[in-house]
C-alpha cells in the first residue's frame, strides 16, 4: 500500500476505489451468507469512510486493530480481498488459514493486526503496539477502531490513560454508528459524547463527520502526524452509521426510524465523495464507472478464488495452538 497523505487526485481516487471495494465486498459477503456459505457477519456498509480517511496516511508497517465489524478496516489497510473472502468461507487459503473467520481477519504483512470479537478487547492491544514502536524507536503508528458501545468498556479508559502518560503513538478511533446492537448510544453513554472523555486523560478528543471521507482524511492526518512526531495519542469520535442490521438477520427498523436512516443515507460517504470528485473535476463519471467495474470484477474474482480453494485439512485442527510443543 502506498501512503496517500496529500489530498490530490490520486488520493481521491484511491479513497473512492477503496470505499467502493468495501461496499461491494460487503454486499457480496451478505449474499454468501444468505446462501449459507458463511454463518453471519457484521456488515460495515455505511462506515467505509472512517478507516479509508485514516488509512490513507498509514504505511504497511503501521498497525490497525479492529472489531467484530472489521472488513472495512482490513480492506482500507490493504488486505487482499481474495484471501479475505476465502477466510469468510473457511478456506485454507484465507488470511487466517480458515481458522479465524469474519471476526478475526488479520494480515500482519499488511499491518492488520486483527479484528477481534470481544468488544473493546483490542484497545489495550493497540496501546501495546504503540509501546512497541516507541521502545523500538520507530515512528510506526497504531490505530484501533472500536464502536460507540465499546466506549463503555473500562479498558478504553485504562488505555487512554496509559497511552497519555507514556505518550504513545496511538489513535483511538470510535466509530459512533449510533447503535450497539439495538441500543441507541445516548441510552448508555453518559453525557452523550465519547470524544469529550479525552479531556480527563489530557489527550485531544475530536468529533468528526464520519460520512465525509475528506473530513476523516483531515482529522486522521493530524492525529497520525501527531503520533509519528512522538506527541502522543488522539481520541477521534467519527459520527457514522451502519446501514444494515447488527449481524444480518435483524431488521434495524425495530429500533430506529426510517427518517433517521434516510438522513444518514442521504449523506452517504460514497455519494458525497462522488459529488466532490465530479464537481471539482478530478475525474469524470466514466472514470468512476470504470473504478466501480474494477471493484466488481475484483469481488467476482475473490469469490471464484474462495470457492475454488480447499477447506483446511483435518490435521490443521491441532496445528497453530502453539509454536512449539513439548
Amino acid at each position, binding site marked *: 500500500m502506498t501512503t496517500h497523505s496529500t489530498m490530490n487526485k490520486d488520493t481521491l481516487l484511491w479513497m473512492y476505489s477503496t470505499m467502493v471495494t468495501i461496499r461491494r465486498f460487503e454486499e457480496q459477503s451478505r449474499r454468501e451468507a444468505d446462501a449459507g456459505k*458463511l*454463518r*453471519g457477519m457484521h456488515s460495515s456498509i455505511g462506515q467505509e469512510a472512517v478507516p479509508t480517511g485514516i488509512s490513507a496516511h498509514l504505511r504497511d508497517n503501521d498497525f490497525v486493530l479492529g472489531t467484530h465489524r472489521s472488513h472495512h478496516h482490513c480492506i482500507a489497510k490493504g488486505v487482499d480481498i481474495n484471501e479475505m473472502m476465502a*477466510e469468510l468461507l*473457511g*478456506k*485454507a487459503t484465507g488470511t*487466517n488459514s*480458515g*481458522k*479465524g*473467520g*469474519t*471476526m*478475526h481477519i488479520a494480515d500482519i504483512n499488511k499491518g492488520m493486526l486483527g479484528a*477481534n*470479537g*470481544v*468488544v*473493546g*478487547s483490542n484497545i489495550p492491544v493497540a496501546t501495546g503496539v504503540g509501546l512497541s514502536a516507541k521502545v523500538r524507536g520507530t515512528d510506526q503508528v497504531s490505530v484501533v477502531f472500536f464502536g460507540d*458501545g*465499546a466506549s*463503555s*468498556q*473500562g*479498558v478504553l479508559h485504562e488505555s487512554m490513560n496509559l497511552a497519555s502518560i507514556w505518550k504513545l503513538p496511538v489513535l483511538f478511533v470510535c466509530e459512533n454508528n449510533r447503535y*450497539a*446492537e*439495538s*441500543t*441507541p448510544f*445516548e*441510552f*448508555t*453513554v453518559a453525557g452523550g459524547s465519547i470524544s469529550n472523555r479525552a479531556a480527563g486523560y489530557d489527550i485531544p478528543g475530536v468529533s468528526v463527520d464520519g460520512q465525509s471521507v475528506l473530513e476523516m482524511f483531515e482529522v486522521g492526518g493530524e492525529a497520525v502526524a501527531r503520533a509519528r512526531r512522538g506527541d502522543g495519542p488522539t481520541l477521534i469520535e467519527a459520527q457514522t452509521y451502519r446501514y444494515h442490521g447488527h449481524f444480518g438477520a*435483524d431488521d434495524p427498523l*425495530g*429500533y*430506529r426510524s426510517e427518517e433517521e436512516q434516510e438522513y444518514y443515507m442521504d449523506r452517504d460517504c460514497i455519494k458525497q465523495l462522488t459529488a466532490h470528485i465530479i464537481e471539482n473535476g478530478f475525474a469524470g463519471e466514466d472514470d468512476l464507472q470504470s473504478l466501480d467495474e474494477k471493484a466488481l470484477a475484483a469481488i467476482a474474482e475473490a469469490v471464484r478464488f474462495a470457492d475454488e480453494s480447499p*477447506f*483446511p485439512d*483435518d490435521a*490443521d*485442527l*491441532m496445528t497453530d*495452538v502453539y509454536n512449539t510443543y513439548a
Partner: protein
Amino acid sequence: MVQAQAVRQLSYIQAVNEAIRQEMERDETVIVMGEDIAGGGDREDKQDAWGGPMRLTKGLVGDFGRQRIRDTPISEAGFVGAGVGAAASGLRPVVDLMYVSFFGVCADQITNNAAKIHYMFGGKVNIPLTIMTGIGAGTGSAAQHSETLYSIFTHFPGLKCVVPSDPYTAKGLMIAAIRDNDPVIVFNNRQLMGIRFDVDVPEEAYEVEIGKSNIAKEGTDVTLVGIGYTTKVCLDAAAELEAQGHSAEVLDLLSLSPMDDEAILESVQKTRKIVIVDEDYPRCSIASDISALVAEQAFDYLDAPPRRVNPPHAPVPYSRPLEALWVPNKDTVVEAALGVLE
C-alpha cells in the same frame, strides 16, 4: 418425523423466558440486567426491539418495565459487579453475560466478590445472584464466541454451576437459581436453543434441585455422563449402542457445583464402565474431575479405565469442517463407549 408426546411443549428459549417471568411475578425484588435484553433504549415506540441476543428475555420489558428490565452499557465488570452489590442489599438480580467467553472482563466480580463474600464475611451477607450465560460451539462463531468454560467456574468455591439439557430442566434450574441464596451460574448451550424437544414443561413454576443429576436413560453396560448439549449427544449415542446390543445408561449431570457424586458413583457401580462427554476444553475439566472422582471412589468397581470425551486441546476453529471435528458428537461417543465395552 417427531411425534409430539409432550402435553406442553416449549422451546428451550421459551422455557427460560417463562422461568424468569414467573419469578418476576412472584418476587418483586427480581430484576434482570444485561445488554440488549429489551432493546430500543428509551424510544417509546421501539421497546423490546431485541429481547436479548438469544431472545431469552423477549417480552419482559412490556410486563415489568424499565426499572426491572435494565439494558446496560457494554460494561460487564460494571453491571456484574452491580449485580453483586444489588444482591447484597435486597435484590435478587439476574444478570445476562451474553457469551461465557466474555467472562474475562468481569471475572474479578464473579470470582473475588460473588464467590467469596459470603465466606469472607463470616456467613453474614448473602449474594442471591443469578448469572446466565451462553455456551457452546457449533454455530460458526469461532474461538471467542464458542467456549463452554463451566469447568473454571466449578473450580471456585462459593459458586454454584448448573447446565440445563432441555426445556424442562432449563425452566426448573433457572427458577431454582433465582430462588437460591447463593450465586448461581446457569450455562445455556446455544445449540439446545435450536432443537425441538418432546418434553413436557409444566405451566406452574417448579424447581429442579441444584446439586442433583438425573438418569435420562437407564442402562446396564456403561454409564454415559452428559452435560447440557452433550446429554443429547449421549442419548443419541445410547440409541445407536442399543442398536448394537449395548445397554447404555445416560446420566444427565445438570449440576456441576455442587455435583451429585453419589449418583455418578451409584451408576458406575452398576455399569462398571464410564464415558464422560464434555464440551469444555480437556485440561482441568469437569470430565477430568469426574474421571478422578470415579477412579478414587469406585476403583474396585471399574472394569475398564474411565474415559473422557472432550474437544481437543485447541481453540475453536472457524472453518466448518474443522469446527465439526472439534465438538464431541455421537460417533466419537459411540467409539469411546465401544472402547470401554470391548
